[in-house]
């Protein structure tokens, strides 16, 4: 029937693909920070793309299995162990009732996803199980809590080719669509933005990622608030970029220089403060092509009621 939480860790929440249809009501998108790792977890188990997983940030988590279950851990290597034995991630594993699953410290990346066959069955809020702490929707997991899911037994023929297993240590290049107020920035401002290597600051959470670097001089910093999409890059009053992520507010009034391609944000989700990132321009048709390949492979949005208003 589920897992019992022995140690909840720093920031462990249930997430699915998010709350995609509530912009008119001011609800943030929410959902997994690393769509790539999450999608693989569900795919390897033969799940629906929307099935909820546990997003474990940094580690210090221990769970006890209360049933036999087929699981898969993808994303960061947080020194994952079953009953104190190191186990390969990016692979489906049959666990037994009484097994202890533990995540310790980040070795490679910072966010791990625990997917279970059939997905977690926690309470849905507005068509999604995603927790959004900023909006007070749901909560982090707590000690002794029971996280519900179905028992399962099985062996799957899905596997991941090693070339799709990401290297979170490589330099992060965020490809940027020239959207929103891109054309209002001068050539000099754009040159400074694209030529420098930024550093991820400590102000980096599920709402947004603030970057440190050489500030862009801006004449006007505020405009009439408008809808912001996942990955849009605000240039704040101090001239530095803030990349808006899953828990960001739906509208805002800073100028935006562009929007980062969603699958590059999956790489960003695995970076710690201090990591380096830079931006490159990307054409919309290229972004749509790459995203469509991803959507088709993982069955994202296909015949999904979840995407209907």
């Amino acid at each position, binding site marked *: 029937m589920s897992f019992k939480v022995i140690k909840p860790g720093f920031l462990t929440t249930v997430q699915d693909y998010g709350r995609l249809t509530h912009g008119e009501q001011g609800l943030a998108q929410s959902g997994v920070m690393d769509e790539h790792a999450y999608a693989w977890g569900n795919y390897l188990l033969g799940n629906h793309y929307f099935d909820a997983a546990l997003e474990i940030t940094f580690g210090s988590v221990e769970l006890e299995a209360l049933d036999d279950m087929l699981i898969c851990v993808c994303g960061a290597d947080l020194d994952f162990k079953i009953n104190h034995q190191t186990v390969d991630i990016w692979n489906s594993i049959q666990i037994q009732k009484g097994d202890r699953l533990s995540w310790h410290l980040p070795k490679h990346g910072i966010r791990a996803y625990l997917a279970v066959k059939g997905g977690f069955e926690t309470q849905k809020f507005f068509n999604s199980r995603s927790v959004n702490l900023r909006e*007070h929707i749901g909560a982090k997991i707590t000690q002794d809590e029971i996280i519900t899911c179905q028992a399962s037994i099985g062996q799957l023929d899905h596997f991941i080719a090693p070339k799709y297993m990401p290297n979170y240590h490589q330099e992060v290049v965020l490809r940027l669509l020239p959207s929103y107020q891109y054309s209002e920035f001068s050539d000099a401002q754009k040159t400074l933005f694209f030529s420098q290597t930024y550093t991820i600051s400590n102000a980096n959470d599920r709402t947004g990622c603030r970057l440190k670097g050489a500030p862009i001089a801006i004449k006007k910093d505020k405009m009439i608030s408008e809808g912001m999409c996942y990955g849009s890059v605000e240039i704040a009053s101090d001239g530095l970029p803030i990349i808006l992520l899953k828990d960001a507010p739906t509208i805002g009034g800073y100028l935006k220089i562009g929007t980062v391609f969603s699958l590059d944000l999956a790489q960003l989700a695995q970076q710690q403060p201090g990591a380096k990132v830079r931006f490159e321009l990307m054409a919309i048709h290229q972004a749509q092509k790459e995203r469509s390949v991803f959507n088709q492979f993982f069955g994202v949005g296909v015949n999904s009621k979840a995407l209907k208003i």
Partner: protein
Amino acid sequence: MHKIILAGESSLLIYFGNKIDPSLPRNIANFANQLKKHFSESIVNLTPSYTSLLVNYDLNKTNYQQFKTQVSELLEQFSFEQAEQISKVIHIPVYYGFEVALDLEKLLAEKELTIDEFIHIHTSQTYQVYAIGFSPVFAFLGQVDEKIQAPRLATPRIKIPAGSVGIADRQTAVYPIDSSGGWNIVGRTILDLSLNDPKNLDKFKIGDKVRFYSISRDEFMRYGGRE
């Protein structure tokens, strides 16, 4: 006057004007309904704001060039002079006491107003919902009388209690949940606008009207108000 621009890999932004105008929210809401009717298969999400509408579409059904052309054709046919749709008026009880209205004393001194004058000005206006965002159920209401308008605080507060009524420039709003924020706090409502009651998600719609009315400290405390 209309403009459609790229927003993200599966979203575009429509501008209906370039300045805040009381006729826009209703028109944007009407156009959003038209979009839903015409493109129910391809539209995933709509986020209206003061002068714009963000549209997220399903990449499995369409693409930027195709969808932009279709939306632009619909915009050309759309009549912006349509009869007013019926909108509801939401009444919000507010206690304007200094113990909950954290910035009111300072504001009164700056504006050289008595508390009664301030309450009269804030409660005699019928406001319109221009946008919903920042957090769910947070409705941006305008326009506040110039006599009581005030810029955001230089340093935002870390925690503003749920129910606080704020003013920022010519906008006013209620904070539905405890949040950080930089608005001038001038009162507090006893209404629970949080998502503890899921029905609150549909409390405000773009174009709705809102009026505040003043309640006494006794009423505030009796209905569960907290200092």
